[in-house]
């Protein structure tokens, strides 16, 4: 896909992509109040990024989305999840929900659960997008950017 898809696809993508990513973030952050959660939200965010990449083509999006970025978010999300688990030791136990529970049905409730959801969303979204990047962009006999 050297130059992306047609003008219609590009225009619709321009209008829609940010809302898809926003919906993914909403599904992830409100996972403890409504159906959803980090895994689904991350997958939706990855879908939005993949839409942008397919519509505009490899050449235009090469500098926006790099392998280093995908790997960094993937590892960062995983480390954040483990860090939340280890922070439970502050209050006494592994994975203890140490933060205050707050009012139920609010965004700021349920202690560490929204934080874990955000970490998992970053991990899953970046991971799925990274796999797509690897399948779509890696070509035999070509060195990629972001690859040391």
């Amino acid at each position, binding site marked *: 896909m050297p130059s992306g898809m047609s003008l219609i696809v590009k225009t619709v993508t321009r209008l829609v992509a940010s809302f898809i990513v926003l919906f993914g973030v909403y599904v992830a952050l409100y996972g403890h109040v409504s159906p959803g*959660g980090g895994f689904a939200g991350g997958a939706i965010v990855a879908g939005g990024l993949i839409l942008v990449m397919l519509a505009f083509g490899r050449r235009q999006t090469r500098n926006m989305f790099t392998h280093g970025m995908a790997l960094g978010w993937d590892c960062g999300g995983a480390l954040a999840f483990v860090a939340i688990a280890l922070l439970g030791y502050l209050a006494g136990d592994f994975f203890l929900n140490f933060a205050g529970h707050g009012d139920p049905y609010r965004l700021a409730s349920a202690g560490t659960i929204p934080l874990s959801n955000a970490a998992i969303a970053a991990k899953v979204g970046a991971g799925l997008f990274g796999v797509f990047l690897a399948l779509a962009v890696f070509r035999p006999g070509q060195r990629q950017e972001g690859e040391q």
Partner: protein
Amino acid sequence: MDPIMWLLLALLAFMIIGALIAAETEDLLSSVVCVGAVGAGLAIIDLFLGAPDLAITQVAVEVLCVVFLIRVVLTRRDETHETHKDTLAIGSVVLVLGVLLVLGGWAMTTLHPFGEPLLASADPGVAGQYLAGGLEQTGAANYVMAVLLDYRAYDTLGEATVIFVSIIGAYAILRKTGRVHHALGNEPDR
């Protein structure tokens, strides 16, 4: 029988037909589309069984998988090749699968009836305690998340580790292919 049950059976039949077509068709692209149809049927079944969390995840992941597979099918060559049929191998595989099927069906008869899981019926059971004290103990209104990220967060950590390792592994394998061709000085063939 419950009308929902008929709908679920119809969806199940649809999924089975889709899976059979996906396995049998010659064209890789139609096979991928049929795999997507199976996933969509599963998502609808999840909705009717009252599992919206699963349905959302299933839809999102299924769409991504179909996009991945179509992308791969369109750009990579079809490198499958048919070998001659080995009757002994096929026969033994069928025999083993048949024995497993019979034993599995036998084991199914000891399960609780569909829709009445064991955890719900045990009197001071774990599930009852989750439902009774979940909102108070975790503060999460969505009990699925309360179980996933609070009561059973350790399981979720293992699941996240599996995804992480598989993604890193896929990354490493795909990158190595590029490097080998680079080292051999081969021209990119597409």
